[in-house]
């Protein structure tokens, strides 16, 4: 009974992964098709020319650089804000907490276009010109909420007595933050940073309205979709996927190593406890 069930589950899992990856494969495959329309069908022969075109596409590279700069700026601003917000929300209770929490989470649920438009209008009124700096601020307004949620979840596993212990041992508030709280939050900060980075790279709606006259990669890709697309886009996508895969593999190897070390330590702790009882 369980055996057939497991087989069914495995088949389903396989099918699901196929479903997730097949479109990406088809899109990647089109990068090698010598056909100016991006598709794998009809196949008109293998070519590297779309990669060559991509390399020569200056606008794309400028957009790429802009995207990275914006993403880094978003990480630098959103992570401290999200962390501060998580700490704040974690140390208050009652109705104020509920209201504050609602206000903080709301931007996640707000359509990006609305965020972009409102950011643009507001800064326009205080005479700040549009541009990538506004894209950063617009993106931070909802990405900070993701960071806040991640850090908050991590804070819930934090023992506040650790901070009190450090204070009691004479640490200043700054030292408590640096030596006790931040190290504990590191995984959440890293995850928050990564999410912020990828959310920013991925962002289209907010950026579209706030970017002024600069391009970012998604906006550029979209304008390509609108104005004459060639398989250079597919070449770009394929390269992004490959980079992601490499980064993911690298992360996974590191994670497994850390997990092994921690497991060994815990086993030793259990052995010590067992020895004590004898």
């Amino acid at each position, binding site marked *: 009974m369980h055996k057939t069930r497991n087989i069914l589950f495995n088949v389903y899992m396989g099918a699901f992964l196929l479903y997730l990856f097949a479109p990406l494969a088809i899109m990647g495959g089109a990068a090698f098709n010598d056909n100016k329309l991006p598709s794998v*069908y009809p196949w008109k022969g293998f070519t590297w020319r779309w990669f060559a075109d991509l390399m020569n596409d200056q606008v794309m590279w400028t957009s790429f650089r802009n995207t990275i700069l914006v993403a880094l700026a978003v990480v630098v601003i959103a992570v401290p804000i999200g962390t501060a*917000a998580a*700490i704040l929300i974690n140390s208050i209770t009652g109705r104020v907490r509920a209201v504050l929490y609602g206000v903080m989470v709301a931007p996640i*649920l707000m359509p990006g276009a*609305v965020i972009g438009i409102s950011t643009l*209008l*507001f800064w326009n009124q205080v005479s700040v010109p549009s541009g990538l700096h506004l894209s950063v601020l617009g993106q931070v307004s909802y990405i900070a909420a993701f960071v806040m949620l991640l850090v908050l979840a991590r804070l819930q596993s934090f023992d506040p007595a650790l901070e009190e212990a450090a204070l009691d041992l004479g640490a200043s508030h700054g030292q408590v933050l640096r030596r006790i709280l931040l190290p504990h939050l590191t995984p959440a900060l890293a995850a928050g940073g990564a999410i912020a980075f990828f959310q920013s790279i991925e962002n*289209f709606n907010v950026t579209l309205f706030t970017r002024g006259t600069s391009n970012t990669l998604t906006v550029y890709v979209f304008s390509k979709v609108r104005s004459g697309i060639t398989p250079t886009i597919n070449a770009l*996508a394929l390269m*992004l996927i490959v980079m992601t895969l490499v980064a993911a593999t690298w992360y996974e190897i590191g994670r497994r190593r850390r997990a092994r070390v921690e497991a060994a330590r815990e086993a030793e702790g259990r052995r010590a406890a067992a020895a004590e009882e004898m």
Partner: protein
Amino acid sequence: MQDMLRRYGSSLTGAFVALVAFWLLVLVILPNLTLFEQSFRPYLPVVDVGGPKDTYSFNNYAKFLNNPVVWNLFGFEVTVPVHLKTFLSTVFFSGVVTFITFLLSYPLAYYLAKVVEPRSLPTLILLLFIPLWVSEALRAFAWYIILTFNGPLNAVLVGIGLLDKPVRWQNGVLTAYDAIVIGLVYTYVLFMLFPIYGSVQSLDRNQIEASEDLGAKWWQTHWRVILPHAKPGIASGCVMVFMLSAGSLLVPSVLPSTSSNWFTQTIQQWMLESQDWNTGAAYSFLYILLCTVVVALVMWLFKVKLSDIAK
């Protein structure tokens, strides 16, 4: 607050509060207030802004109810304002997307949480995460390639004889929104999977075994034990997927049919095509308001709280 002061001292607490205040006030509340204020003002040439014609009214909101069109709903012809129709379609098909992603995700979440060997779990999760890192524009575009009339899907289906002639997938087989639904499901299914996985995972395996031990059939175990436990995760996934779908602009723009219209496209049209930022602002607020009502209703029905959701 007292607690915070004690832990972090006045200067650090001040810094935290300042950061949060900057975020919520300057980045969230004030821009939205600006938008809100703009939504009550008429669209005027720049020279007239602030002049005698620049007065507050509900005119921009009233446009939502203009332009009646005939809508064939299950055989009944009803006349509704065109933008209301767009809004209702957006809500309905976002609901469809949500439901499909749930059906796809639940068995998988259960599999990941309780069936799969713990050793291979991290690798699987990592694999699942990879598509999330490919930009939404490109994911929607992948489906555009697949679904086109002269595309690979038709080529394969006709080639193996399943179809005798190509189908216009993008224009819809069942409804005008087929391609958009397919694209949205593909784009957001993982936002359903991971919250459900998280909540199923926190269920003690003993509870499942106890249920089986007491003679429950597998579906009874799911219905009475696992689903109720996973409710916050499900609600969380549903709200996320629903709001993301309804708020998507890329997917409906890349995978439209000739009769589809997404509410975000309407907003974009006001903003960019008609240049009427004021009506665009009004529509944005209507959108937020109406979607909030929908989400609140769902949360009330499922008896879940906001704090259960955003985890």
